[in-house]
Every structure is written in C-alpha cells, then in structure tokens.
C-alpha cells in the first residue's frame, strides 16, 4: 500500500498540472504582496487574506483534480488490472490514492505557506501559531474535498466528478448564505432544507479562518477541535463509502 502510494505520488509530482497549479498559486501569493504594498495601512491584511485564499484554492484544485482523475484514469487505461490481480484488497488501492494526495498536498502546502510567511512583516508568536493552524485547517479541508472527489469518481466520469467536487467545496461555504436567503425569502421548510444541506455538505463556513482578523486573536481550541473532528469524520465516511462502492465495481 505504501509502495503504491509512493509510485502514484511520484507520477503526479512529475505531472505538469501539479506544477502549473503550484506555480499559479505561487504567483498569487506574490501578487498579494504587491497588492499589499499599494495600500500601506491595510498591507498585512491584504497579504494574509489574499495569500491564504490562494493557498486554499490551489490545494482544493489539486485535490479535486487528483482524486477524480487518478483512479478513473487507471481504470480507463486498464493499468489497474495487474494491480487488482495482486493480493491486496481493493480498499487499500483507494487508500493508496488518498495517501498520495495527502503527500502531494502536504508538499504544496509547505511550499506555499513558507512563501507567504516570508511576506508577512514582523509576525509575533501568537500570529505565527494561528497562521500554522490556519494552514493545517486548509490542508485538512483539501483532503476532505479530495476524499469526496474519490468517492464521486468511483461512480461518475472524471470531468463530471471534478465539477461536482468543486461544487461541494463551494457549497460547504455557502450553505449558511443559502439559509440566510431562504429565511429572508420566507421559504417554507427552510429549516428542514438547511438541515438536509448541512448533512450532505461539509460545513467549512464554521472554520473559515483565512482572514487576518481571525489570526490576530487566538483561535478558540474547541472550535479547532471541532474542525479536526468534522474533517476526519468526513474523510472517514467518504473513504468508507467509496470502498464499499469500489468493492463491487466491475472493471471491464
């Protein structure tokens, strides 16, 4: 399993897509620095806000693309047949893909986070800790989206799965706004709809710490714990469901 993970990681590391996204994100982080230097008073704020948003977008795009294309491509090219004939259960192959995604995004997160950190002038200790936590949470979110992408790709075509998992990511932030509008518009059963939506989408809006304001004061430990539990819960649930579906999938 570890071996499989490593092989996949190597392949994707060589892949142009990964390098391009990383390069764009890098530019974005630098760009946020440029923006920051334009308005002097708001400098720190702009750098951090834009930079963190850029990092999240980059990681989520890598996660979506990797999760929806790796397994699907391997099935499409029939290269998976010889792997399936080896004495490893199918779920381990899935976990192998997830593992490679975790490694890839970890490397991307480290590179981007360090780059952005260099642009922040005189960060104090508390800010640095919060900054690290924010990056970890962004990383976790990308893994959640990755596991959902993998789940969708077991049953759907790669492009469709890609679009769908990006949608899940967007929805995970905007369900709260959806609720707000539903209440404003006095739609019937808005509560029930909201409960339903919160059940089928992760609730990233609850730990959206990608802004300077948040990072200046300490992140609440119980919020942090909730963010971790929520993410791990989603990853476990998606991977479990994906394994169940993949176990019975016919590879023709």
């Amino acid at each position: 399993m570890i071996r499989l993970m490593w092989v996949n990681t190597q392949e994707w590391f060589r892949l142009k897509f990964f390098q391009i996204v990383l390069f764009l994100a890098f530019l974005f982080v630098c760009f946020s620095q440029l923006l920051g230097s334009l308005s002097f008073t708001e400098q720190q704020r702009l750098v951090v806000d834009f930079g963190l948003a850029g990092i999240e977008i980059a990681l989520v795009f890598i996660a979506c693309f990797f999760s929806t294309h790796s397994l699907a491509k391997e099935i499409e090219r029939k290269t998976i047949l010889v792997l399936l004939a080896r004495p490893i259960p199918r779920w381990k192959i899935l976990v192998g893909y997830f593992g490679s995604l975790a490694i890839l995004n970890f490397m991307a997160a480290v590179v981007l986070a360090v780059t952005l950190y260099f642009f922040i002038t005189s960060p104090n200790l508390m800010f640095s800790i919060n900054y690290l936590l924010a990056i970890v949470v962004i990383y976790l979110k990308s893994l959640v989206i990755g596991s959902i992408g993998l789940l969708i790709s077991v049953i759907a075509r790669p492009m469709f799965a890609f679009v769908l998992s990006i949608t899940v990511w967007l929805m995970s932030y905007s369900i709260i706004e959806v609720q707000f509008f539903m209440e404003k518009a006095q739609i019937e059963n808005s509560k029930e709809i909201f409960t339903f939506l919160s059940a089928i989408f992760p609730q990233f809006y609850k730990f959206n710490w990608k802004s300077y304001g948040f990072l200046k004061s300490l992140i609440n430990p119980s919020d942090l714990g909730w963010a971790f539990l929520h993410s791990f819960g989603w990853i476990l649930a998606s991977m479990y469901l994906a394994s169940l579906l993949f176990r019975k999938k016919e590879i023709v």
Partner: protein
Amino acid sequence: MDIVKVSGIQKSFQPDFYKKPTQVLKNVSFVIPQGKFIGLIGPNGAGKTTTIKCLLQFIFPDKGTIQFGDNQSFIEFKKHIGYLPERPFFQEFLTGMEFLKLHWDLSGTKKDNFEHRAAEVLELVKLTHAKDKKLKDYSKGMLQRIGIAQSLIAFPDFLILDEPMSGLDPDGRILIKDILKDLKKTHITVLMSSHLLEDIDELCEELIVIHQGECFYNGSTPEFKKNYSTLQEAYKAFKGQFEVNYNV
C-alpha cells in the same frame, strides 16, 4: 487437487441501461487441476477473456460459483498467482525495473532477494538491456515480455496468461514457448488462452473449449484430439458442428 472450480457461471453485459443486455457467458463450468497446463480456446468473442475476468473478480458473474482451492479466501488465492492481461497496458511512467519492484512488493512475498529474482526474470524474457528504460518507450513486444516477467516475478504457483503470444514476433513467440516449456518441468499450473492451436497442442495437456459463451469441453487434450492427428483438425471438426458464422 483442483485449484479452481468454476460451476455454471453466467454473465451478461449491459453497455447502457436502455439497451438490452447481451449474455456473454451462458454456462461455463470447468476445473483447473493442479500442476497441469490448461489451454483455453475458442473463437474471437467466445468469452475467454470474460471468463478470466470473472476468475480474478474484476467482474462478478450473475449466476454460478467459483471456488478456490479448498475454500481458500480470494486474497489467499491471489498470493499464489501471476497474471498477464490480454493487452499489455502498464503504468508507463515506470522503468522496467521499477515496474517489477512494484509487483514484487504488492505480491507480499516474504522472500527478500528481489535483485536476484529481477535479474533472473529479465534475463528470461531478454529485457536486461532495457531494465532502466521507461515502459512508455517499450515496443509492443517488449511490453508483452515485461508483462510476462511481471507475472513470474513473485514465484507464482498458478499462472493465468491471456494470449501470451499476441503481439510477439516469431522469435518472441519461440522465447515464450521455451520459457513455458521450462516451467513445465516445475509444479506450476498454467491457464493460457490462445488462438495458436499448435502452441496449445504442444504445451497443454488439458483443454477448455468455449464457444459462444458455453463450455463445450473440459478434459485432456489427447482425448479431444482422439481421431485426429493435430489439434487444429480436431478443432475444425468440433467447429463443424456449428454453422460457422463469422459475424462476430
């Protein structure tokens, strides 16, 4: 002892939900006795590859059962097999050596002399010179040969080869035939599908004949040949029972 016992498997494919399913395997039963070479023959589209896919649980039969050993688990069964797919599609970003290493590790073999074993199988398929080349730079015949090396790498007891001779030049064909002949001296079991009846005649003492999704014969090769001097003639006579129809 039988390594595999297939009883009455049926399989239909439904390419799209609105289309009528086509039954590819209608009734396939056979046994694979240990230590024998078994040839799986039949015309194009008879269902040979589909049978092998059922055996390896890439797909699941609609009806019928497949029993491994004396009720071995499927994972346990897979520890002892080597498999060569019909078409040699492998992770092309790996080199020959990395590819073998991957399969060595995945096979979960307890032995630890990979370098030695890899050199051995590479020599066997005459690919030692290309071991550090990426698979995407391999020719079709080389891919077929590295595929065979892959199936042999972890000392399998049971080889499943789906058309091992396809895509090979005459030299390659002779090479593979010689490898198989050498394997015959060991206790290995081989199930191979092929269209080359002379090869099957030469190598396999057992036969499974599939035609239009049905298994018509499962027994020894001499028995099938009975009144004919070659397998080719016997097969022709067998086919003569049916209206020969090449619309497939």
